[in-house]
C-alpha cells in the first residue's frame, strides 16, 4: 500500500488509493480477520499520518490491546496512542485493559501500558490508575520505574491534588544510579514543584544537596560509552538537573548558595566547542540568571553569553540573544556592552536571529543611546528585506516616540522612516506624527518643507504622501514663503504652483488609496484659499473628481466645488488651519479608546457625508438643537469618558476673538469629538455654542446648516419638535425675562421618558437644596415584554451646557413582564440654568472619517433665548433571546425650568 501511495503523482490519485485501502481495511475488520489485524492497524496509522480520518479503526485498537500476544498488544497500544486521544469516549473502555496490563507479569507489557497511559491518560483514568502507577515507581526493573515516573507527571498534570502522593517516591528516585530513572525522576520533581509549593519546600530542604552531588558526579564521571555524546556524559541529564536546580534556587538564597559551587564548576569546565557542551552551558547560564546570586557567577554567565554571541554558529548566537533578553532585566549594564554585536545581529541574514536581536535591542535602548541606535536602525531600514521592514518600522516608531526629547528630532526621524518604509507604518503612528507636527508651531515651516522634499523623491510610500499632503494643505503658505526657516535647512524655492502640483500628483497617483485621495482633496480646498491665484486651477482638479466612482470622493468634490463657486465669503474661515491638536487627549484616546464604542448599526443615517446643502427658511431652532444635541457622547456608568467630554466648560464666555479663531476650549471638544468619530464612518461633528456679546445677523450661512441638520442622526427627532420648542422658549423669554433660580425642593412631575412595546423608562425628578442647577433624576426601567433582558446598559448623552453624572445601575438584568425593574440615578447640572443667552457663536467642524477636520464654520446666531431646558439622548442596549437590541431616543419633553 505504501508503495502504491508513493507512486501517486497527484493528490487526487492519492485520495483514490487511500479510499480503496480504507475500504479493504473496513471489510477486513468486519470479517474479523485475526491475522491481518495488526497489519491493518499499521496501514491505518500511515493513512492517518497523511491526514485522513481513521476513526473506524479505533475499536480495532482496543481489540488488539485486549489480545494476549505481545506483538499484537504492541501495535494495539501504538495505534491507541496515535489514533485516539483523551477526549474520546472510546478511551474509557481501555481503562480496564490498562489496569490488567499494569499488573501483568511481563515487564514489557507493563512498560507498554505505562507508556500508553503516560501519553493519553485522561483525568478519570488518572484517578483510577494512580495507585498502580505509584506502586510501579518502586518496581525492580529501572525501565519500568522511569516510565512510571513520567506517567506520574501526566497524572499530576491531569489531577493536581494527587501530587502529594508522589512526593516521597519522587524523592527516592533522585537517589537512583540509572540515568533513565534519574532523568525522569528529576523531571517528575520539577513538575511536582510547579504544582505544589509543599513539594517545592520539601525538595529544597531534602534534595538540593543530593542533586548537587549527582550533578558533580556526572560532571566528573569518567567516559561511559553508553551515555556519551561528543565527550560529555549524558548532556540531557545535565540539563534536567540544572533545570531542577533552577526551580529550587529561584527565590531561595539558601538553596542558591548551596549550588553556586557546582554551577561555577559546570560553567568553567564544560567544553564549548561542541553543541552538547554549549547546550549545557546555555542551561547553566539560565540557571545562574534565575537563582539568587549577585556575585561573580552572573558576570561569568554574561561573559559566556558574550562568547556565544561572537560565535559563528547561528544556533549559538540565537540562544545567546534569547538569553540576553532575559538578562537585561537583571543586569542591563553588562548587556549594554554587547550592544554593537547585537546591532550586527539585527542586520543578520537569518530571520530568526534578526527578530530576536531586534527585540533585545528594543529593550536596550535608553535616553543615552537612542540617537545613534535609531540612526543605525534607520540606515538599515533602507537595505533590509521586505518582510522584516514591518517589524523594524514598528519598533523604530515606538522607540522614537518613547524617547523623543526634541520635537525636531522626532519629526526628522519619523520623516526618514516614512520615506523609507511608509507603507509599513501603522495608522496610529502617522496620526500621532500629525498631532506632534500640529503642536510644534515653530517647526511647521521646517516640517512642511522637509516633507515636500521627501515627497518629491519618493512617492511610493503611502503614509509619507498622506502626511505630506496634510501638511501642504495646512501649511502651504509656509512652504512657499519659507516661513520659520531654520539654520540647518537648505534654502528651497517652491512656488505656489509647485505646491499645487505636488498635491495633484498625490491625487492622481494610481496607487493612492481612498484616504490619501480624500486628504489630497481637502488639501486642495485649503490651498485654494491660501493661494487665491490658483483657485481656478484647483477647482479644475476638484471637478475632475466629480465623476469618481468612489461615492465619498465624488460627494466631497462636489461639495468642495460648491464651496469654491458659491461661498467665497466663508471659504477662508472654513479652511482655517485646524486648531492645535491636543496631545494628551490623543494619547489618552490611543491608550484607552472608548469605554463603549458606538456601534454603527444604530440605524441612524449618520454615515452620510457631511456637507453643505440646500437652503431653508427658518433653521435657527435646528441650529440650536444641533449645536448642542448633536454630540452623541457615549456614556456608560463607570466609564469616565462622558466626564471627559462634558468636562469642557462651556459656560458662557465672552468671546472677543470673533469668527476667526476658535475659543481654546474647542480644542478639547474637538478631540473628544474626534474620539467619538472614530467609530462612525463619517461624522458631522459640531462644537458647542459660545456666547457673544452682540453682532450682526448673517443670513447666508444658515443655508448651509440645514444640510447638516438633516444629515445628523437626530434629524427625525430634532426637526419637528425642535421647530416648535425653542419658539416657545423664545416667547417665554420675552415674557418673563431671565428667571430667578427655582425654589429648592420643588416637586416635578415624573416623566415617561421613553416607551416602546418592549421597554418603559420613567424619570423621577428632584432638586437638591442649594443647587438649583442640579437635577437628580431617577430612571426606572421596566420590561414590558415576556423575555428577560440581559446585559442591560443605559447610556446617555447630553448637550454641552449640561453636565451629567451617571451612577451605576441597580442591576444589569431586567426580569420579564414588568416583574421588577432596574433603577439608575443620574445627576444633571444645567449650566444654562436661568441664564440669558442673547447671541451664540457656533463653531461647526466638519470632519472626515480620518478625524481630520475638513472645515470649520463659525456662525453667529442672533436669537433671544433664555433658559435652556434639558435635553438628553438615551441609548439602551440589552440582550434578549441572545440577540442584541439597541434602542435610541432623544428626550426633549423634560419639564420646564429644570
Amino acid at each position, binding site marked *: 500500500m505504501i508503495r502504491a501511495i508513493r507512486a501517486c503523482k497527484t493528490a487526487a490519485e492519492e485520495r483514490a488509493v487511500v479510499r480503496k485501502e480504507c475500504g479493504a481495511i473496513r471489510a477486513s475488520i468486519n470479517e474479523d480477520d485475526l491475522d491481518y489485524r495488526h497489519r491493518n492497524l499499521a496501514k491505518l496509522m500511515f493513512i492517518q499520518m497523511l*491526514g485522513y480520518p481513521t476513526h473506524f479503526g479505533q475499536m480495532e485498537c482496543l481489540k488488539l490491546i485486549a489480545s494476549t500476544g505481545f506483538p499484537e498488544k504492541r501495535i494495539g497500544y501504538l495505534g491507541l496512542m496515535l489514533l485516539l486521544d483523551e477526549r474520546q469516549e472510546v478511551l474509557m473502555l481501555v481503562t480496564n485493559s490498562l489496569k490488567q496490563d499494569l499488573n501483568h507479569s511481563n515487564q514489557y507489557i507493563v512498560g507498554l501500558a505505562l507508556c500508553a497511559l*503516560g501519553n493519553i491518560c485522561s483525568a478519570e483514568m488518572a484517578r483510577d490508575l494512580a495507585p498502580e502507577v505509584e506502586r510501579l515507581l518502586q518496581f525492580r526493573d529501572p525501565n519500568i520505574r522511569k516510565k512510571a515516573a513520567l506517567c506520574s507527571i501526566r497524572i499530576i498534570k491531569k489531577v493536581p491534588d494527587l501530587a502529594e502522593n508522589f512526593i516521597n517516591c519522587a524523592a527516592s528516585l533522585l537517589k537512583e544510579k540509572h540515568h533513565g530513572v534519574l532523568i525522569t525522576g528529576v523531571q517528575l520533581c520539577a513538575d511536582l514543584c510547579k504544582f505544589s509549593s509543599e513539594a517545592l519546600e520539601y525538595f529544597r530542604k531534602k534534595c538540593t544537596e543530593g542533586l548537587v552531588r549527582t550533578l558533580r558526579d556526572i560532571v566528573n564521571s569518567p567516559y561511559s560509552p553508553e551515555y556519551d555524546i561528543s565527550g560529555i556524559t549524558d*548532556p540531557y541529564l545535565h540539563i534536567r538537573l540544572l533545570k531542577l536546580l533552577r526551580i529550587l534556587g529561584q527565590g531561595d538564597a539558601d538553596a542558591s548558595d548551596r549550588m553556586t559551587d557546582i554551577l561555577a564548576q559546570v560553567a568553567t569546565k564544560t567544553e564549548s566547542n561542541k553543541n552538547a557542551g554549549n547546550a549545557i552551558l546555555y542551561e547553566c547560564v539560565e540557571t545562574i540568571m534565575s537563582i539568587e546570586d549577585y556575585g561573580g557567577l552572573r558576570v561569568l554567565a554574561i561573559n559566556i553569553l558574550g562568547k556565544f554571541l561572537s560565535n559563528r554558529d547561528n544556533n549559538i548566537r540565537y540562544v545567546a540573544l534569547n538569553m540576553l533578553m532575559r538578562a537585561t532585566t537583571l543586569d542591563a549594564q553588562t548587556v549594554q556592552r554587547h550592544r554593537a554585536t547585537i546591532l550586527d545581529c539585527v542586520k543578520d541574514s537569518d530571520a530568526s536571529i534578526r527578530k530576536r536581536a531586534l527585540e533585545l535591542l528594543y529593550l536596550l535602548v535608553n535616553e543615552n543611546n537612542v540617537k545613534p541606535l535609531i540612526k543605525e536602525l534607520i540606515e538599515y531600514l533602507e537595505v533590509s528585506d521586505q518582510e522584516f521592514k514591518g517589524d523594524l518600522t514598528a519598533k523604530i516608531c515606538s522607540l522614537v516616540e518613547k524617547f523623543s526629547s526634541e520635537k525636531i528630532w522626532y519629526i526628522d526621524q519619523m520623516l526618514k522612516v516614512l520615506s523609507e518604509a511608509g507603507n509599513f507604518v501603522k495608522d496610529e503612528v502617522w496620526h500621532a506624527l500629525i498631532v506632534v507636527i500640529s503642536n510644534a508651531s515653530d517647526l511647521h515651516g521646517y516640517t512642511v518643507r522637509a516633507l515636500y522634499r521627501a515627497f518629491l523623491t519618493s512617492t511610493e510610500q503611502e503614509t509619507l504622501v498622506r502626511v505630506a499632503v496634510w501638511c501642504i494643505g495646512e501649511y502651504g503658505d509656509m512652504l512657499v514663503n519659507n516661513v520659520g526657516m531654520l539654520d540647518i535647512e537648505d534654502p528651497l524655492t517652491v512656488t505656489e504652483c509647485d505646491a499645487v502640483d505636488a498635491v495633484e500628483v498625490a491625487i492622481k497617483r494610481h496607487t493612492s488609496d481612498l484616504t490619501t485621495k480624500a486628504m489630497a482633496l481637502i488639501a486642495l480646498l485649503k490651498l485654494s484659499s491660501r493661494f487665491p491665484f490658483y483657485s481656478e486651477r484647483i477647482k479644475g482638479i476638484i471637478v475632475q473628481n466629480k465623476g469618481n466612482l468612489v461615492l465619498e470622493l465624488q460627494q466631497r468634490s462636489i461639495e468642495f466645488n460648491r464651496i469654491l463657486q458659491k461661498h467665497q465669503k466663508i471659504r477662508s474661515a472654513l479652511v482655517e488651519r485646524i486648531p492645535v491638536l491636543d496631545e494628551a487627549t490623543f494619547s489618552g484616546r490611543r491608550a484607552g479608546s472608548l469605554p463603549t464604542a458606538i456601534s454603527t448599526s444604530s440605524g441612524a443615517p449618520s454615515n452620510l457625508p457631511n456637507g453643505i446643502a440646500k437652503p431653508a427658511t427658518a433653521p435657527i431652532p435646528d441650529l440650536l438643537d444641533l449645536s448642542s444635541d448633536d454630540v452623541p457622547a457615549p456614556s456608560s456608568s463607570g466609564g469616565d469618558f462622558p466626564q471627559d467630554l462634558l468636562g469642557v466648560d462651556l459656560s458662557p464666555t465672552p468671546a472677543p476673538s470673533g469668527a476667526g479663531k476658535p475659543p481654546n476650549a474647542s480644542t478639547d471638544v474637538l478631540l473628544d469629538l474626534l474620539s467619538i468619530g472614530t467609530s462612525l464612518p463619517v461624522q458631522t461633528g459640531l462644537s458647542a455654542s459660545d456666547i457673544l456679546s452682540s453682532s450682526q445677523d448673517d443670513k447666508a450661512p444658515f443655508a448651509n446648516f440645514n444640510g447638516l441638520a438633516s444629515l445628523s442622526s437626530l434629524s427625525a427627532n430634532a426637526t419637528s419638535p425642535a421647530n416648535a420648542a425653542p419658539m416657545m422658549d423664545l416667547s417665554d423669554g420675552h415674557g418673563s425675562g431671565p428667571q430667578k433660580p427655582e425654589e429648592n425642593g420643588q416637586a416635578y412631575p415624573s416623566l415617561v421618558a421613553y416607551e416602546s412595546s418592549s421597554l418603559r423608562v420613567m424619570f423621577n425628578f428632584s432638586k437638591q437644596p442649594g443647587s438649583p442647577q442640579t437635577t437628580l433624576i431617577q430612571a426606572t426601567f421596566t420590561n414590558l415584554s415576556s423575555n428577560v433582558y440581559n446585559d442591560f446598559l443605559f447610556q446617555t448623552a447630553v448637550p454641552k451646557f449640561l453636565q451629567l453624572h451617571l451612577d451605576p445601575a441597580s442591576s444589569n438584568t431586567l426580569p420579564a413582564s414588568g416583574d421588577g425593574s432596574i433603577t439608575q440615578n443620574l445627576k444633571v447640572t444645567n449650566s444654562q440654568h436661568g441664564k440669558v443667552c442673547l447671541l451664540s457663536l457656533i463653531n461647526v467642524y466638519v470632519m472626515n472619517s480620518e478625524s481630520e477636520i475638513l472645515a470649520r464654520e463659525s456662525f453667529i446666531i442672533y436669537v433671544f433665548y433664555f433658559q435652556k431646558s434639558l435635553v438628553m439622548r438615551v441609548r439602551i442596549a440589552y440582550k434578549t433571546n441572545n440577540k442584541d437590541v439597541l434602542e435610541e431616543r432623544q428626550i426633549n419633553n423634560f419639564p420646564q425650568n429644570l
Partner: protein
Amino acid sequence: MGIRFILMVNKQGQTRLAQYYEWLTLEERRALEGEIVRKCLARNEQQCSFVEHRNYKIVYRRYASLFFLVGVDNDENELAILEFIHLLVETMDRHFGNVCELDIMFHLEKAHFMLEEMVMNGSIVETSKANILSPIQLMDKAS
C-alpha cells in the same frame, strides 16, 4: 511539557512520521504541518535551526533528504533538542543501519516504537541507545 510534537518530513514536504504530544484535530494537524514545513524548508543551511511559530519554537535539523522537526515550548533548551534529534537519528541508524526515508516509511511502527522509548508525554525518557533498542530487538527476535 517540553516537546509538543515530532515530525519527519521529506524534501518535498510530505510527512513521513508524525507524533503529537498534545491533542490537535486532524485538520489542525494538516494545517500546522503545512505551515511549518513551508517555513522550515525555505531556510538555508547557514541559517539557524530555530524557527518561532505561533507560541512555540521549532527546532529542526536536516539529514540528507529528511527533515526532523521538533516543536517545543518556549522555555525549552533548543540546543539540547538539537542534540536530541541527532541522538534519535543515531539510534535509528544503529537499528536500520544508515537509516533513510524508506526505512522509516516501511517500518513506521518501528520508528514509532523507538520514539516511544525515547520520548513519553513530551519528556525525554531514555538516552542510552542500547536501552532504547533492547525491547525492539526483543520483539524482532520473537516474531
